[in-house]
């Protein structure tokens, strides 16, 4: 396992070094490697596939222009998370939109694990979209990227204690939001 990780790191290091010399293929490898992360952060934040793709492309374009500032694969991941988060907030403020999703824009069905309830997962995503921007990003960084409070604090430029309290509050808000939705559904039925 460790050997695979070391090999992966070497591969990325090599791709990064080649990309620094202007190798387009190496840059494409870097994009392929990180596109899932960047796109997912944008998608979970914006809840809009085309906007998320556009934003992810802009992030990679910015990476292309600033590639000489990237020092290592770890720094690259950190840089991408940070720039994506900033652009998400920027985009969110620009649009001032709440989640309005057409049926055809709906995300592709996830490969749900054995215990996951698809309805619950959808409701969770809907509730996430109602959270304020910073809270949403903290939740995404914690549960999509699996970052700890200190890492989230670094990426989002927030104090660690603020991250912890924001995370706590976000989970409480998500629970409250879910309960409210269930009540609405009950009233609609009965």
């Amino acid at each position, binding site marked *: 396992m460790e050997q695979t990780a070391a090999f992966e790191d070497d591969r990325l290091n090599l791709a990064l070094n080649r990309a620094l010399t202007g190798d*387009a293929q190496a*840059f*494409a490898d870097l*994009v*392929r490697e990180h*596109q*899932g*992360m960047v*796109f*997912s952060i944008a*998608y*979970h934040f914006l809840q809009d596939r085309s906007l*998320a*793709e556009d934003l*992810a*492309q802009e992030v*990679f*374009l*910015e990476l*292309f*222009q600033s590639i000489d500032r990237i020092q290592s694969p770890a720094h690259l991941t950190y840089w991408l998370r940070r720039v994506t988060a*900033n652009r998400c*907030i*920027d985009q969110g*403020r*620009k649009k001032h939109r709440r989640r309005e999703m057409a049926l055809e824009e709906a*995300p*592709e069905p*996830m490969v*749900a*694990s054995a*215990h*996951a*309830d698809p309805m*619950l*997962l*959808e*409701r*969770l*995503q809907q509730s*996430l979209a109602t959270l304020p921007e910073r809270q949403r990003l903290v*939740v*995404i960084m914690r*549960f*999509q990227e*699996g970052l700890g409070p200190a890492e989230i604090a670094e990426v989002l430029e927030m104090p660690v204690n603020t991250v912890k309290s924001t995370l706590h509050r976000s*989970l409480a808000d*998500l*629970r409250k939001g*879910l*309960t409210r*939705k*269930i009540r609405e559904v009950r009233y609609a039925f009965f």
Partner: protein
Amino acid sequence: MHFSEDDLREALKRKDPGEGFTQRTMARVNQAGTEGTKQPATKKANGKFLAWWMLRPAWAMAVVAVLLLAFGIGGYQYSEYRHAEEMRMARVKQQQLQQEAERARDQAIMALEIARAKMNHVLRHAQLQAEPNDKIRRERL
């Protein structure tokens, strides 16, 4: 409805941007590369600066508030300084006037003294002229 952290992880699982994302991104990168990298860099810097205002209105308001406060305090201190300076100048002028007045009074007193001495001298001479006796006059002189 309750959910666990695992449910949240499942809901926020990474998603694939779909077929051709890398190609589309690379096409955009190549297009930007052919248009020249210098120009976008400047544009980006401007955008960032503008974005700063748009992203952090609270910070912008705080900066404006601090500037206003600084200008206010600066203005108040300057007016205080001006007032103190005017008062000092007035005091100096008053002292100068007082000194000049004292000097004029001293000169006037001296002039009166001189005039008094001369008058006495003339008076004494006049009285002596009136004395018939030359001897007595010489004695008195």
